[in-house]
């Protein structure tokens, strides 16, 4: 091992440790700013109070938590059926050539920035919803539809990977026993690919809950707890984005508290995925 080798090794160590240090730094920073707030004001009080009025020192984030939950659920309701259906079709019913063309096309289109999705929601979807269903158009429904489309490529891609990873014998055996392709899908393939598909859904969930710009553009940002899908709402991410520019003191820490909640949620989601894959 020459001196050169030693130097290179030291450099790699240095860079790696720096990177890991940076990632630790941001994690600790966010928790350090947000967690004290949660404990000072009382975790339960903050999470379950619904009055958010920083100028009155009121920091109840319940309405925004509900907003995030509703919109994310809505996105999943739109994205899961469409996404898994596309994946099933492309893997089990389509010609290999069709699949080879369409899969990259869908992934390519996944590169569309979220602000463009939000824009389309703003000028195409919201007016339609306003004319036909009422309300302002800036609503949970619009946001769910747009976010659902946004997470489609994730769900499709990972579901396809899971289905393609199944041994060919599963399908061949089932067909040999006289089942139709569809019966095979329902009774053999989907259950077998279950964990991968669920992992893809969880990833899509993570992306939906983390979306900020598109939601600000089409969900209306209201602080009321929504009662219908046509109601406007504000998510936690939008809440952070709308006020972080000027929030100081307790207000800023409240925003960090929301960041902590989102962080922990993503942590839980990732743990779930790891757990699912460890079971295999």
């Amino acid at each position: 091992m020459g001196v050169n080798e030693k130097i290179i090794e030291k450099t790699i160590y240095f860079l790696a440790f720096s990177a890991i240090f940076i990632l630790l730094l941001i994690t600790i920073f966010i928790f350090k700013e947000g967690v004290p707030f949660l404990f000072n004001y009382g975790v339960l009080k903050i999470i379950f109070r619904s009055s958010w009025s920083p100028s009155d020192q009121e920091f109840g984030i319940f309405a925004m938590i509900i907003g995030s939950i509703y919109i994310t659920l809505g996105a999943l309701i739109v994205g899961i059926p469409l996404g898994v259906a596309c994946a099933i079709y492309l893997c089990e019913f389509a010609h290999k050539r069709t699949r080879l063309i369409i899969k990259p096309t869908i992934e390519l289109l996944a590169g569309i920035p979220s602000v463009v999705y939000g824009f389309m929601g703003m000028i195409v979807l919201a007016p339609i919803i306003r004319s036909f269903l009422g309300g302002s158009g800036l609503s949970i429904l619009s946001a769910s539809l747009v976010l659902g489309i946004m997470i489609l490529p994730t769900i499709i891609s990972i579901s396809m990977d899971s289905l393609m990873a199944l041994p060919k014998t599963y399908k061949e055996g089932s067909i040999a026993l006289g089942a139709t392709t569809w019966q095979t899908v329902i009774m053999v393939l989907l259950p077998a690919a279950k964990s991968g598909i669920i992992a893809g859904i969880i990833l899509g969930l993570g992306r939906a809950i983390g979306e900020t710009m598109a939601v600000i553009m089409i969900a209306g940002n209201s602080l009321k707890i929504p009662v219908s899908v046509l109601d406007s709402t504000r998510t936690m991410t939008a809440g952070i984005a709308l006020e972080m520019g000027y929030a100081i003191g307790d207000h800023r820490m409240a925003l960090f508290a929301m960041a902590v909640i989102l962080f922990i949620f993503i942590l839980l989601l990732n743990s779930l995925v790891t757990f699912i894959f460890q079971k295999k």
Partner: protein
Amino acid sequence: MVSLLKRGLLIAFIISIYLFITRGSKTATIIRLAGSTAFQPFAEKLADVYMDKNESAVIDVQGGGSALGIMAVNQGIVDIGMADMLQLPRVVSHLTKVVCARDGIAVIVHKDNPIENISKKQLQDIFTGKITNWQKVGVSPAPLRVISREDGSGTRKSFDQIVLKKNKLTINAMYQDSNGTIREAVKSDENAIGYISIGFINSSVKTVDIDGINATNENVKNGKYTLARPIYLILKKDIGQDARQFIDFLLSNEAQTIISKNGLIPVK
């Protein structure tokens, strides 16, 4: 192919580093402003004029709302904070401030909304949520949607102070974060009502009279239209010479004429 790419990336890196080093040294005169979205377009326009006359000056303008301007100038990360509110908060009481313009707040509705006039009391009831249907103010029945600015807006603070007084904004309000976005939201929703700086009025939305008074700069100047506030420039502590010069320019006749021509009320 990959090695060509590697070489290309390497060259791109080297060029970038070169650019950063040579151009990066021009950190000299960046004058930074941030804050009021009502004044932002005017600050930009005046910055253009100023930079035409002063080759070496570079002026960066951010929006973000008056509260952001106040926070930023307080922290020293901008030279000038722009804030459009009736009174500035205590946190900047130790800083120099100067009024560079005045501006009225117009209540706006959708172009096709037949309403022409509204009383201050009705306005208060609408924004506190007591009135929730257009019927109550004399037009055909339809749900009334209130659009407000977020907390950090000077326009909002002023509006709340003058119209809402001590009452709270309705929980049903939707929010947008700048004059432009409020105008956009009201423009597309037939049942919406909102408020923007008079300087932001254009043909895409309809302005509503308050107690019979038209929302115009004339009426703000002569005191008839009372929904108005001054636009402050807050100077950071130890502000530099370059920024001071720019402020002098903003208060000059030339700049004030431009301000007046483009929809705000000059301070002179």
